[in-house]
């Protein structure tokens, strides 16, 4: 369904960014514009999301073709359940981090293009979530990355600068590979539109026809690129080194948003396109079940396992709040990769749910850390203590967020994790399931570490930091954290409503038909249907499978060798 309003989600931050360049010396006005922009984004994305949630399947994907050029000739902007959820969460997280920064960022830093950069970052992030074009995705990544490079070095402390180059160089390398891979996609398929690619892949699958030579290698390259942005094993190194040097609000924003963009692209592109091996099974009801490339799935499984486990060990061994939280970002990404690796509709739904809740919760934790630092003047656990006495409200907020992160029911982290692990067990990936559970327990330990050393234990803060003074100066921070924690609570207690949307997102990711017809028009999928009908006609329903489900199993290997 066409709806040109969706591009406003990119226009709003762009416009706000430009306005705040003009207002570079007006602190209050800049802040006002920024808040307005985030609020507008949040409101718009929520209203659009509600709209498509209520709509029937055929109208549940909103599309706008840039320049009015029909897909695949122009650039398609697509707003489906997954992008909708993520943009909502991103706007909320952005608003939280932005408001929080008012109480922690120094005026000097703030004047150095902080406001425009925050807006442009959202421009890039929203565009990444929205775009339906591979090359445009590259551009969106670059906007986001460029803004993040600048935000990473903003303020320019020694610690920041001595680490920032790694983030930038690794990302430049990944971007270059992305660029080449996008070019190669054009070389192989003559198109860049994601829906068009999905169509071509679906046609291959329906005909059980091999995908072009080098397709698998291309998929590996994409995985490397997105894996690096998403901080998968063994590509996460840039993350811990850089996140604990930036101003804490920015760390919160990065921790919440940036890795999710990488994970999102994997979730978007892999089940639909790059994880395909060109084979398929036709189910009894005439729907097609695409085959999954064992290489890609194995890589994802290995990545998920190591990302979850190794990173949580890293997190629990740190002795600074920021570092614990930073390294945890990676570990949690492991769960999302787990969801993608399972690659069923339900697992992807779980992954979507997990992503949005993690954005909110992780950002909230970072922001809490910001206030903790204000109280104690440090984030070293050995020098913290007794914060509960100083600031019980912060303690409550932190505790809820921390337990959400750990995933104790009924808080938000639980539900996504539950669905993912359930599907993992169901699909026979019990090893991932067990690692996921153990990781959960160690996550608990690390959060308890922060809680026990930070909020309990004797107070060691310098007496100069009067609790009242800190509280007074951190009013925006409290507002921001409260906002995010309320969101997190809603995601937990109201998980049903959110999960329904996530479930639809999972379905849309699992079944390319909706996406393809929404972007390319109803005829686009006709060829696939034709091919499926042909195959059903050729091979009448085979014997019922052992489980009693009547599958017409078409084994591609057997077919290929006559």
């Amino acid at each position, binding site marked *: 369904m066409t709806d040109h309003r969706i591009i406003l989600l990119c226009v709003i931050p762009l416009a706000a960014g430009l306005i705040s360049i003009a207002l570079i010396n007006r602190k209050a006005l800049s802040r006002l514009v920024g808040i307005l922009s985030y609020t507008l984004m949040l409101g718009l994305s929520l209203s659009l999301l509600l709209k498509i949630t209520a709509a029937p399947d055929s109208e549940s994907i909103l599309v706008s073709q840039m320049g009015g050029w029909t897909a695949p000739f122009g650039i398609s902007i697509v707003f489906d359940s997954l992008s909708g959820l993520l943009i909502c969460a991103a706007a909320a997280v952005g608003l939280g981090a932005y408001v929080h920064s008012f109480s922690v960022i120094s005026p000097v830093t703030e004047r150095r293009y902080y406001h425009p950069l925050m807006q442009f970052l959202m421009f890039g992030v929203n565009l990444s979530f929205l775009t339906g074009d591979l*090359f445009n995705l590259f*551009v969106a990544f*670059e906007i986001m990355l*460029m803004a993040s*490079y*600048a935000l990473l*070095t903003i303020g*320019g*402390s*020694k*610690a920041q*600068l*001595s*680490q*920032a*180059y790694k983030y*930038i*160089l690794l990302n*430049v*390398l990944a*971007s*270059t590979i992305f*660029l*080449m891979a*996008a*070019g*190669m996609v*054009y*070389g192989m398929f003559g198109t860049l539109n994601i829906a068009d690619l999905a169509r071509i892949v679906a046609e291959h699958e329906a005909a059980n026809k091999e995908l072009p030579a080098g397709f698998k290698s291309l998929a590996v390259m994409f995985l490397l690129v997105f894996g690096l942005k998403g901080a998968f094993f063994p590509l996460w190194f840039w993350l811990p*080194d850089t996140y*604990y*040097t930036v101003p804490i609000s920015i760390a919160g924003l990065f921790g919440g948003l940036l890795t999710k963009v990488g994970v999102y692209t994997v979730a978007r592109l892999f089940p639909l396109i790059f994880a395909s091996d060109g084979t398929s099974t036709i189910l009894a009801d005439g729907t097609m079940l695409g085959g999954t490339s064992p290489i890609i799935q194995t890589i994802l499984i290995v990545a998920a396992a190591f990302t979850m486990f190794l990173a949580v060990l890293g997190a629990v061994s740190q002795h600074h709040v920021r570092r614990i939280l930073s390294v945890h970002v990676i570990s949690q990404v492991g769960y999302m990769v787990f969801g993608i690796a399972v690659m069923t509709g339900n697992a992807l739904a779980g992954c979507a749910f997990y992503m949005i809740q993690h954005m909110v919760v992780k950002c909230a934790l970072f922001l809490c850390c910001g206030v903790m630092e204000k109280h104690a003047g440090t984030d070293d656990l050995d020098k913290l203590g007794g914060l509960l006495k100083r600031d019980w409200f912060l303690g409550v907020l932190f505790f809820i967020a921390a337990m959400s992160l750990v995933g104790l029911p009924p808080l938000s982290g639980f539900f996504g994790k539950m669905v993912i692990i359930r599907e993992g067990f169901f699909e026979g990936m019990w090893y991932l399931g067990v690692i996921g559970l153990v990781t959960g327990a160690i996550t608990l330990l690390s959060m308890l570490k922060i809680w026990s050393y930070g909020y309990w234990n004797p107070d060691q803060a310098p007496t100069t930091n009067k609790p009242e003074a800190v509280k007074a100066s951190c009013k925006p921070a409290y507002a921001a954290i409260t906002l995010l924690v309320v969101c997190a609570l809603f995601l937990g207690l109201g998980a049903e409503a959110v999960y329904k949307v996530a479930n639809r997102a999972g379905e849309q990711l699992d079944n390319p038909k909706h996406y393809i017809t929404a972007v390319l028009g109803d005829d686009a999928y006709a060829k696939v249907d034709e091919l499926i009908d042909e195959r059903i006609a050729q091979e009448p329903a085979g014997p019922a499978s052992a489980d009693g489900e009547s599958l017409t199993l078409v084994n591609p290997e057997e077919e290929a060798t006559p």
Partner: protein
Amino acid sequence: MTMVLAICVAVTFAVSIYLMLGRELKGVAMGVFLLSHAANLSILAMSGSPMMTHAQQEAEVAAENGSHAHIVDSPLMKDPPILASQYANEQPLATMVDPLPQALILTAIVISFGVMAFLLTLLVVTNRKTQTIEVADLAEEARKA
């Protein structure tokens, strides 16, 4: 001709990786600079060979010399992606190089310039703050922090 580009891509990429693995960030920056060349050339290769195929040459020559088609010795190149006239339905599009990769490269060049400039400035500022741009020294800094 694609082979030539592929070799160029391989060599520039290899050299840039070699430079990026070096011990000083100046060399690394040069590696990044080369990296963008490698990427651009790789995309350029996707527009296919700039030389016409045998059949295309025959058709071209036939169009020029009436029906007496004979292949000239020197190879014919395709046209640049600029339409000869405003109502160009006569334009033999098959003998024009694919314009889309060019547009992609143009975008990529601009972006890589931006990144490059930022990276170079970062080096200057980093050097000013940390007094070093040696990778090993900066890693030491990370361990200390």
